[in-house]
């Protein structure tokens, strides 16, 4: 799966979790840029990504995530 495919599926997941279709996913995008991206929403996002991509992240991987770029890189390692 290449980056653009991952971004496309992530966009759907973001839309679902935030109930908002106007979030533009860029590698630099991070929690402080998006309304409602608090720690709980973050957990929902991670759980949803794990479910859709059928992968599981470790606690340390999750805690190191800084932005969407990190997330895409992490997913790419697994799928």
């Amino acid at each position: 799966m290449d980056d653009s495919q991952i971004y496309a599926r992530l966009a759907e997941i973001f839309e679902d979790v935030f109930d908002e279709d106007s979030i533009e996913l860029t590698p630099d995008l991070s929690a402080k840029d998006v309304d409602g991206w608090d720690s709980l929403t973050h957990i929902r996002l991670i759980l949803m990504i794990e479910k859709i991509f059928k992968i599981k992240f470790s606690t340390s991987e999750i805690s190191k995530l800084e932005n969407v770029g990190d997330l895409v890189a992490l997913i790419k390692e697994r799928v």
Partner: protein
Amino acid sequence: MACARALHFSLKETKDVNLSMNPLYAELQWLPRVPKEFSERLKDLGNSTGHVGRELQALALYALDLNQLTKMAKVIVKARSEGRSLNPLTPFRLAMLSNSTVDLIVPGLVASAARHGIALEVIQPSYDQVAQEALTPDSRVNSSKPDAVLFALDYRALPLQLSLGDDTTAAATVQGVIGYLQALRNGIKTNSHAICIFQTFAPPSETLFGSLDRALPGTLRSILDSINRELTELVLASGDVLLDVAGLAETVGLAEWHDPQLWNMAKFSFSDQLIPLYADHVARTVAAIRGKSRKVLILDLDNTVWGGVIGDDGLDGIKVAQGDAQGEAHLAVQRLALDLRQRGIVLAVASKNIDEVAREPFEKHPEMLLKLDHIAVFQANWNDKATNIQAIAAELSLGLDAMVFLDDNPVERGLVRTLLPQVAVPELPDEPAYYARTLAAGGYFEAVAFASEDLKRAGFYQDNAKRAELQKQVGGLDAYLASLDMTITFQPFDATGRARNVQLINKSNQYNLTTRRYTDAEVAEAENDPEVFTLQVRLADIFGDNGMISVVICRPGEPGVWDIDTWLMSCRVLGRKVEHMVLREILEHARAAGIQKLTGVYRPTDRNKLVVDHYARLGFAKLVEEESGLTRWERLVAGADPESAPMKAVSQGFAIAKEKSVA
């Protein structure tokens, strides 16, 4: 080639992380799959300005995942905040006290409650404020006057310490925990009078010794076993409500239930994948508190009660014997139906068959567990199933929302869901071995208490169906009533009858003038208040004792007036002129108490049209009719009593006992 590719994929998939649990429970497989247009329909609903309750319930009936539940909850919360009506959903305020993160669970509860006919509002205080909220009189929970408080506690909330092999210390630990839970309960009971819902504690899957953990005093598993046992005894004795989370966790597996990573990261006390299951269990418990549990199981026959088609395969061809794998699957369905009947669920049959052919296995097949005696209404003909289910409901005088319909045929299930959306129709897997488990997993008959009257109920309704037949034969109603040789017994409320009174007050929907629900404690209060006149009514006839069938509460109004706060009756004694006899009894006591006037009110719900003319039929004069359909009535105590009905009347337990007989 296709095979090779399939193999390749399946090999690849085994390397993936397997997130799937037993799908029956984790994915609520007794519910139909979510249709593609779900999001669209939900969106339309969010923008609609009309009554949204019914459509919300219809959408909630699908097997929604956590995300879909969350979206639906948003629509519900928004509709409520805009002041839109959620009728016909029944409002319920639930406070949730927890030591874990419940933010993802709360929306799940709200949406799952709609599935069970409840418009749920959840009061969620700050994280881990259990004792403060319960014990402080003006805490957020206590001051919000919830209908019930759910103690959603995990074992990690408890002051537990290991005391390996030391049963004295272990017992002290257990008593400490029980004392803590009791203190929480007393706090809520004193400060807000809400119903308390306690959860049993799911033990962690890790053991210390291994199997010995279960046996040795002072291990975590052994301590939690004792706490759960004592907690359940406490709940049974106090009239509180139990949510058996330990049982739920066992059902799906403790290792699936607990997710240490999620606990560490976000303090989730169980796996996020099981939130829809947990939420449905909370919702069915709340629905049971509000009397919404179902009462009747309607069975299809061919390929449901037995394997094969009786009309084609004949008595020797159908599979229903021990020792035959398929036969045993269908016998398991029969066993479950029979056990349900034993706890008071009424059984009926709806089958497309020639009547006598359909009856043959019940009469002649030696391996059949179900006999004709067990079936209250037997509808075998060539009408469609919806028509037959309506006939069954009419015969039993019960609403369609009391019915569960079990059928292996997806076409029949679809037809009934479309034409009669109030009937619960579980999805069934292709394999009959899982039919019984799937039916049980649906929790349609959830009960929060068990009164000895429940034991007899299936028989009552069955006798009722017999009475209906007799009525057809006898012709004249009065002649029929006289032939029943009825005895009606009046008593004031007492401790012995309280469980049943509470049950009637909370379950009766149709013959219920005001549909006011009261807790055990509130009924006890009425019982002990000398200003309040209460009646509990029993009826016996040639078919047996119907048990407690009617409840009346009159409260003092203006001087010289009794206001009828509650008047309800079990529908199984409909058309017997019981209400006439009850009024005669009320009038007699009113007269003795120097009361001049009775006032009453009819508060319409979507279930009690039956009694819209109740007071008119009993000679009350209408005072007011409000736009909502609510009507107010009054009747002078002086003057002619209503006509007596042909039954013997007995009064017991009042200041003046009497016994009189009317021809």
